[in-house]
């Protein structure tokens, strides 16, 4: 339990901690990065006895139960072994990176990314739920993307490498998600225990093949199997510590881990043997062959990694228990020798200035110690006896001899293994020879700092110890991990160095001899390669397909998005119209039992008729902004009246007040826009074109109008759901408003109580709009003719000002009144906030913004923020009482003369709404009114250089 928590949380918290620690220098950053890795390691070691005995650690918390996604962690010996690798190599990489990365690098970012990656990796190995595993899987793709792109600012190759790696492994992750979904379907659950126990069921399911294909796509892309291997060499642009970590012990091992993990569920069919074994074999040979041609030390290691991953995959493909054990063994061994080789390559790069093997020679003279370590590690890679690589390779040879093969093709496995063995010896020799082979080159090369070698020394020591006394060291862990991978007792495998003079040993000897011969005659081989092997590269293929996709996407976008707003909007509307028509044509029809609505009186008819007329007028006068605005505001007023007719007093009040501030805002805006719109469509000055556009717009407008009308009409003629006078939902709110919400104004109760969360979101949106508008207007110079336009000689007539001022207290009192009664009668936070804003705005109008703010010191931004925070805090308050967010508490307080006033959390919430609305509206009005005047309202000090009463543009002057 604690182990699992440490496993995930230590690196995650460490990633944050490192960023903070980096302020105190590189050393602090390294310590802060090493500590979580060490903590994980210690926790794992402490848990070792139980886990190796067959205990399985579990931790479960529901996350999205509806999807079958639990935060289920599960650690058995297989996960434990991987966890040890991840944490152990991670710790060494932390130390190594401290010396490797330039002193100018603060290390905070690197370590944070490294720890984030470590956490994702540990998440994969300890996931107890397949969906959770996919989540962590994708996290490794994301975090490795940033690690590979660490030097993206300076190096193009880092950008390309990171992008390629992300595209391939991320795409594979998508396939894996699909596979896991099918797998869960076939197994009857996503829980790992369920899936592992349902092997029979899965293999007999019709979903088996698609699921297998998709899962394998995920595993093969991650573990760089041919033909998805090309991202790995490209990812060598990463800083070497990251390469050593990602591409030896962790990232690429995730794929083979998954294959081992799902072995009981998926293996054991012909499809598995052919797909996994075949892909592994191809990769094994391809990687080894390609490694021969590399001139870059890291490139060689990258292709050799691909080859070794192929080896592991091939072993897993055999499907037998002993093969699985060999695979797990080789995963561990490869991680140790490959990590040390990457680090050695990094040291060579670091201390000799290049990784090009053609420019490196005799480095052993300058760095004897590093050379010794590298030679031993390379020996393990080549499978030299007494080193760990030898043991697992021996097992691989033995397995290949036992391997199932189709008909007379049983020789293919051993032949491939032998060929691989020869080539691996050859490229290992090539790697080693940079340390020998003549005079020192370059002459400046030297040994690295003492502690930079420590990680390599430890890893190489492991290679030797495991290689000489395997059964005393990794033996128990290996057997336990194999047992948990198979979900069955592990087969007996003798982990001895000497099995007698048998066939696998013969193969090893042939490989060693053949490899050295191949290395000696490599020049001839290179020539042969150049003559006969066509220059085919999946890297180029990938780059080309990416390019062509980008081109096609750009072309597609260009046809849709022409840069013309009207045209884009028209396309959007046309599609909407077509969709609506489609639904109407296929699912429409006569209304079920049509109901006749109430009749209309004369007043209603007049209201609706004027409303429609005003709307048409606004549309007709679009080229005359002021006239159109007047018409539009008439529409708004009649909408308010319509709300009254539709028994919605709250809406009518809100609409009326909103209409006032909207007109103010639009008048102010109009001041800064051209007063005269040139004839409708000037685009090409062609009458025919204009007519065409107008016709298009008329058709769209008519169509959408007709559609909206038809929709409304159709709904109004249908009875409500449930058959009552109002819908079941409405009946619920009408019934429960008083008992549950403590208010009789149902609309307000819904707003502040039942659906309080929506309201909180809405005032937040309003706040965003207001802040956005304010930011857009910040320090903006007025455009066009706005500054020169003639203004009223008397901007603030004294009579008007004197008459308006006494109204302010009354208006604010009315606002307070409407607010207080809002829970029971029409009113409430929205209305009160709007009314207060209108009251203030009328002072701005008649006395000027400066005059008003100087006296009232109103900072709209502060009111806005206070409102939103108050509403949110009220909601959060419920959490203190262990209730869900925004649970309301309610009681009545009896205040003399006003009567029973609701006192409770909804009251505070509604107050927050009122303040937010007030602040938002006022902020926008102020900023619009103050365009061109560099003055910060928040400072509450009037601009000294501008005489308050003579300040130029004001709202009344706009319509000249």
């Amino acid at each position, binding site marked *: 339990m604690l182990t699992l928590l440490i496993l995930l949380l230590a690196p995650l918290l460490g990633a944050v901690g490192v960023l903070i620690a980096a302020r105190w220098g590189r050393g602090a950053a390294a310590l802060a990065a090493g500590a979580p890795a060490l903590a994980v390691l210690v926790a794992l070691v402490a848990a070792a006895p139980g886990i190796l005995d067959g205990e399985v650690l579990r931790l479960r918390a529901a996350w999205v139960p509806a999807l079958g996604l639990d935060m289920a962690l599960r650690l058995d010996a297989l996960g434990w072994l991987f966890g040890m690798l991840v944490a152990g190599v991670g710790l060494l990489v932390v130390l190594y990176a401290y010396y490797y990365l330039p002193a100018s690098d603060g290390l905070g970012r690197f370590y944070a990314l490294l720890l984030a990656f470590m956490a994702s990796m540990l998440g994969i190995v300890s996931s107890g739920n397949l969906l959770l595993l996919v989540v962590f899987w994708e996290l490794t793709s994301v975090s490795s993307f940033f690690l590979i792109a660490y030097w993206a600012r300076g190096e193009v190759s880092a950008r390309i490498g990171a992008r390629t790696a992300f595209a391939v492994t991320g795409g594979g992750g998508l396939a894996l998600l699909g596979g896991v979904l099918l797998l869960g379907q076939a197994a009857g659950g996503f829980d790992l225990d369920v899936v592992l126990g349902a092997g029979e069921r899965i293999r007999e399911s019709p979903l088996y093949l698609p699921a297998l294909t998709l899962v394998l796509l995920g595993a093969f892309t991650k573990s760089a199997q041919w033909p998805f291997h090309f991202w790995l060499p490209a990812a060598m642009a990463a800083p070497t510590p990251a390469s050593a970590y990602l591409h030896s012990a962790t990232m690429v091992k995730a794929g083979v881990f998954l294959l081992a993990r799902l072995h009981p569920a998926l293996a054991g069919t012909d499809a598995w043997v052919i797909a996994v074994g075949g892909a592994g074999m191809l990769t094994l040979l391809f990687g080894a062959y390609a490694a021969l041609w590399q001139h870059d030390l890291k490139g060689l290691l990258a292709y050799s990694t691909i080859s070794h991953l192929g080896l592991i995959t091939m072993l897993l493909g055999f499907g037998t228990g002993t093969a699985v054990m060999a695979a797990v063994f080789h995963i561990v061994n490869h991680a140790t020798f490959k990590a040390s080789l990457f680090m050695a390559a990094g040291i060579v790069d670091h201390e000799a200035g290049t990784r090009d093997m053609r420019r490196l020679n005799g480095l052993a003279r300058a760095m004897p110690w590093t050379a010794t370590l590298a030679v031993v590690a390379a020996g393990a890679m080549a499978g030299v006896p007494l080193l760990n690589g030898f043991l697992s390779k021996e097992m691989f040879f033995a397995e290949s001899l036992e391997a199932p093969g189709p008909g007379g093709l049983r020789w293919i496995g051993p032949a491939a293994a032998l060929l691989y063995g020869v080539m691996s010896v050859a490229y290992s020799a090539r790697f080693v020879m940079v340390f020998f082979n003549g005079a020192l080159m370059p002459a400046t090369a030297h040994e690295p700092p003492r502690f930079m070698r420590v990680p390599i020394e430890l890893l190489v020591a492991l290679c030797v110890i495991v290689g000489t006394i395997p059964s005393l060291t990794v033996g128990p862990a290996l057997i336990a991990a194999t047992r948990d991978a198979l979900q069955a007792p592990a087969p007996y495998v003798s982990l001895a160095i000497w099995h007698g003079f048998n066939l696998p040993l013969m193969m090893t000897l042939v490989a060693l001899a053949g490899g050295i011969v191949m290395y000696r005659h490599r020049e001839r081989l290179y020539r042969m390669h150049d003559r006969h092997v066509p220059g085919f590269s999946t890297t180029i293929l990938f780059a080309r397909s990416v390019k062509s996709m980008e081109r096609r996407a750009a072309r597609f976008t260009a046809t849709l998005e022409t*840069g*013309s707003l*009207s045209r884009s909007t028209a396309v959007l*509307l046309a599609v909407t119209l077509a969709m609506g028509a489609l639904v109407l044509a296929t699912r429409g029809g006569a209304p079920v039992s049509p109901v006749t609505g*109430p009749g*209309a009186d004369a007043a209603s*008819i007049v209201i*609706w008729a004027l409303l*429609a007329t005003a*709307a*048409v007028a606004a549309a007709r006068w679009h*080229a005359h*902004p002021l006239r159109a605005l007047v018409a*539009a505001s008439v*529409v708004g007023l009649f*909408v308010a009246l319509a*709300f009254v007719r539709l028994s*919605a007093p*709250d*809406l009518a009040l*809100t609409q009326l007040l*909103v209409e006032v*501030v909207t007109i103010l*805002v639009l008048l102010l*805006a109009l001041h800064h826009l*051209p007063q005269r719109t*040139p004839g409708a*469509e*000037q685009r090409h*000055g062609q009458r025919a074109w204009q007519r065409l556009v107008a016709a298009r*717009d008329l058709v769209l*407008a*008519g169509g*959408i*109008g*007709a559609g909206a009308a038809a929709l*409304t*009409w159709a709904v*109004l003629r249908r009875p409500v759901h449930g058959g009552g*006078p*109002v819908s079941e939902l*409405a009946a619920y*709110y*009408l019934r429960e408003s*008083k008992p549950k919400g403590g208010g*009789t104004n*149902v*609309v307000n109760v819904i707003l502040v109580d039942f659906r309080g969360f*929506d309201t909180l979101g*809405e005032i937040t949106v309003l706040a965003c*709009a207001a802040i*956005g*508008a304010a930011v*857009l*207007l910040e320090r*903006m110079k007025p455009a066009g003719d706005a500054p020169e336009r003639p203004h009223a000689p008397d901007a603030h007539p004294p009579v008007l000002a004197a008459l308006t001022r006494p109204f302010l207290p009354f208006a604010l009192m009315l606002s307070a009144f409407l607010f207080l009664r809002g829970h029971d009668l029409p009113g409430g936070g*929205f209305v009160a906030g709007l009314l207060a804003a209108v009251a203030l705005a009328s002072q701005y109008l008649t006395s000027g913004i400066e005059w008003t703010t100087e006296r009232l010191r109103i900072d709209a931004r502060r009111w806005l923020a206070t409102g939103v925070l108050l509403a949110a805090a009220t909601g959060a308050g419920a959490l203190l009482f262990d209730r869900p967010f925004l649970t309301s508490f309610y009681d009545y307080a009896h205040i003399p003369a006003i009567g029973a006033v609701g006192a409770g959390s909804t009251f505070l919430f509604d107050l927050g709404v009122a303040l937010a*609305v007030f602040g938002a509206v006022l902020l*926008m009005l102020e900023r*619009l009114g103050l365009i061109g005047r560099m003055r910060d309202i928040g400072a509450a000090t009037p601009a000294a250089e501008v005489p308050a009463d003579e300040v130029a543009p004001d709202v009344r002057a706009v319509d000249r």
Partner: protein
Amino acid sequence: MMSLLLAGTVGVLAACGVWLVLRSRTFPVVLGIMLLGYAANLLVLAMGRVSGTRPPVLVGGEGGHADPVPQALVLTAIVIGFGMTAFTAVLAIRARVESGTDHVDGLQDMVADGDDSREGT
């Protein structure tokens, strides 16, 4: 009859809104968004039917209340609609300052300035 009126008005508002939104100057587009907002508000309100003759305020007697749910939805929509209108208006101002024109695509006026060569992108 009431239904017919309401439906017809929603249609007219939507049509006028669409027409305005498709204009090539920023101000009519702002007005169009406003009108579309009104149309949408009335449409949502209509989803609660028009049979209720009393506001959803539970004072004095039972029954006959209008549907409170669409009213609650529309109330916030009105305020958000204001935010939207104000924001687009500000955008229009800012766009004019940046591009020197109030054309929605930033095209320069050809007739207004009498300068044909200034047509931008």
